[in-house]
């Protein structure tokens, strides 16, 4: 086992070295620097970043050059004799004041950019509420009655052992966030559980989403395209697995997408009125379970001892349906168990409950219909 891993490692070292040698050719997309991005702010930030960077480079080069000169010329082996000077108020004043002037030179453009960056409130065309949830994002278009959850795509989850075949590994989601270009979008951030941070580098938006508080930020996307990002604030076990994908499209395409989302929501609501068969519920429940529950309770229902309870043999899962429904719909305060009533629709909750009761080593034998969830809300 260990030997396999070691040999795999050594072969990948060799490949890594090879690919480094071939870097100029093979790594066309390779990035060493901050993205310029596609919003006015992201471009301002890039400019400011480069300004400060070059100032730092110049200061560094000057200091190191003087040091190097001194190291080469003022060495004892070259017969250098030590002087004894050790004080000069004039020099001290110069190198206190000169950096101060440089800092003022940095602070002026930085202040202007910061004031711009913080101006989310004026003239927003679209208001989008972003909710951080362990470990996925919920997007709600405040004026459109459209709301959905976006989590890591299954195609990334399937290849965690060896992801090299998946170009967008860990940067792809099941439901992309679609936004129109050329509109001022105001983001409102908050969280259901711990602190997350929504970050899309190309949009230059990074803002903490904090339980109980609302933060805002804004962007005008100037170029259509797919922009990927990740959660930037440690938020627990799967912090590295809650990506963001923004698909920026033209206004008509955006409107078409909105209409599609509304139709989907209506269909889901209608499905909640129907009677479902055990087979359909379990099949759908498995998908819902893997996307929403498996991170804590384990893909096989084993949980993580001491941190997250197992599903297999759980008293709640195998007990009265009412208790089972309650904990999933309302969550359990004071623990990591979230309330799912805002995250999943009636059919999905019914399906996942039925799945848990009849799979993962449990065999209660009953099923829970969407109507029961509707009543429990």
């Amino acid at each position, binding site marked *: 086992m260990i030997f396999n891993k070691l040999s795999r*490692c050594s072969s*990948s070292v060799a490949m*890594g070295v090879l690919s480094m040698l071939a*870097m100029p050719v093979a790594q066309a*997309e390779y990035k*060493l620097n901050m993205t310029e991005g596609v919003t006015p702010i992201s471009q*301002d*930030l890039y400019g400011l*970043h480069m300004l*400060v*960077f070059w100032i730092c480079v110049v200061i*560094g080069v000057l*200091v190191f050059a*003087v*040091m190097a000169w001194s190291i080469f010329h*003022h*060495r004892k082996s070259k017969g*250098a004799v*030590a*002087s004894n*000077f*050790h004080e000069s108020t004039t020099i*001290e004043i110069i*190198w206190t004041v000169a950096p101060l002037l440089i*800092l003022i030179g*940095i*602070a002026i453009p*930085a202040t202007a*950019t910061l004031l711009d960056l*913080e101006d989310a409130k004026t003239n927003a065309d679209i208001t989008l509420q972003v909710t951080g949830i362990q470990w996925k994002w919920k997007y709600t278009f405040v004026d459109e009655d459209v709301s959905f959850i976006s989590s890591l795509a299954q195609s990334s989850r399937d*290849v*965690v*052992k*060896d*992801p*090299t075949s998946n170009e967008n*590994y*860990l*940067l792809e989601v099941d439901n992309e966030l679609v936004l129109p270009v050329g509109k001022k979008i105001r983001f409102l951030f908050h969280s259901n559980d711990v*602190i997350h941070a929504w*970050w899309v*580098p190309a949009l230059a938006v990074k*803002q*903490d989403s904090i*339980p*109980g*508080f609302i*933060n*805002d930020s804004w962007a005008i996307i100037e170029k259509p395209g797919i922009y*990927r990002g*990740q959660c*930037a*604030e*440690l938020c*627990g*076990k799967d*912090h*590295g*697995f809650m990506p963001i994908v923004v698909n920026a499209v033209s206004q008509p395409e955006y409107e078409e997408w909105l209409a599609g989302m509304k139709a989907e929501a209506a269909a889901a609501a209608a499905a909640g009125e129907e009677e479902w068969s055990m087979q359909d519920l379990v099949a759908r429940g498995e998908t819902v379970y893997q996307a929403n529950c498996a991170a804590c309770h384990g893909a096989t229902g084993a949980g993580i001892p001491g*941190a997250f309870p197992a599903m297999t043999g759980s008293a709640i899962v195998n007990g009265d349906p009412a208790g089972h429904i309650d904990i999933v719909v309302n969550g359990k305060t004071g623990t990591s168990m979230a309330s799912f009533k805002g995250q999943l629709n009636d059919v999905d909750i019914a399906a996942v409950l039925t799945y848990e009761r009849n799979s993962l080593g449990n065999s209660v034998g009953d099923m829970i219909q969407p109507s029961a969830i509707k009543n429990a809300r």
Partner: protein
Amino acid sequence: MYNETTQDGSAAHDDHDHHGPAKGLMRWVTTTNHKDIGTLYLWLSFIMLLYGGSMAMVIRLELFQPGLQWVEPHFFNQMTTMHGLVMVFGAIMPAFVGLANWLIPIMIGAPDMALPRMNNWSFWILPFAFTMLASTTFMESGAPAFGWTFYAPLSTTYGPDSTDFFIFAVHLMGISSVMGAINVIATILNMRAPGMTLMKMPLFVWTWLITAYLLIAVMPVLAGAVTMMLTDRHFGTSFFDAAGGGDPVMFQHIFWFFGHPEVYIMILPAFGIISAIIPTFARKPLFGYSSMVYASASIAILSFMVWAHHMFTVGMPVAGELYFMYATILISVPTGVKVFNWVTTMWKGSMTFETPMLWALGFIVMFTIGGLSGLMLGVAPVDTQYHDTYFVVAHFHYVLVTGALYSIIAAFYYWVPKWTGHMYDERLGKIHFWWSTIAVNVLFFPQHFIGLAGMPRRIPDYALQFAEFNMISSIGGFAFGLAQVFFLYIVIKTIKGGPKASDRVWEGATGLEFEQLSSPPPYHSFTEAPSVK
């Protein structure tokens, strides 16, 4: 083990020097001698360096290639958390306290620390604190996994059961630090030899005096933060829970009000060490002694006023962000003064490059790199892009590894001939320096790039475009880790034997410890106060 030492003790019984150390294990348990306690602190810190380093190896192993090959994300988070805590509280801080114990009395001409029994206690708390912290790894819930910054509510409502052990361990470390700081202040202010005025003190003593005040000011703040966590977790308070009227962001304000001065606690004594080593090997007095003292004091004062630059993305009012940006970049002025003074000290000197000088020069270059990336991070609007990425990881490892740790290693090579009477092996010391310096740059320099390119910190797995640089970084990490095991060999070799060091040790060395004490110094030195010109 015990029998052997007793036999050793009786074998050496005809030694009638009653001022020598007691024999056997109990010497170390009951000692009140500043040199013994200094040694204990330094060994603890070395053990913690290797322990924290081995967790860094686990981190770099998992990040060697994309995908999850070695550890689970939950365990990975435990590793980053414990690595940070152990390195900050276990490796760097005790190393500086150890150096303070060894050096402050012999630098100011005092016979010992002012409060020797408390000194013993403040050391012996630590092994228990760290045993308790380390034990959490073996608990059912695993160790704390919320980062060394333990932001609420991840560490409160969502914290594992082992969090309470973490809280108690932090309390113990804080008590130890505060006692150590009180001891340093009492020693420096009361026990200087006649003629050793404040403005004649070596800069290491000055920087430690300032550091000790910082410790007394902020360790209680940390204690307050963890106590509030404890009551939030168990006694129904809601300091950090918005649902009960509290505020999770307030936790960050309290934590960083401790955390930012803490950063300077870990770097001010380093400034003192470098200010001792550079003049010795340049054979020229330190340039601008008094401005160095004033710069240290300014940095310490500013350190209380900049904490929220760690929080530019939490949604502060714009006026707050502007203030914290201005105050933060202002710190680069006194820090710059220090670097300029060191470089000017070297200018027109007569330099030689023994191992301590190499580590000190490495410090100046790489600490400056870390300082400049710190200036970039201080510019609030751009911090939107840098915050919580590997750019930050690169920055603080440049100031803490190639800054604080390099100064500690430099101090070891510089003073170990004085402490033991043995010269270390110069060739091995130089190999250690070049090996570490190449490795540490291979390790941390690429992290600037992956951070700018968009890799968040504290993730166990990453997108494919970060793969090459992570692999390079890991290779550097393994090499750097191995270099410190090599260092352990050098340390043991030097303690066991080596060419006899002269009392002066270095041609250009100045200060009471080199001018008026033998190498090694007697167990009780300066029992009569020396005269200071």
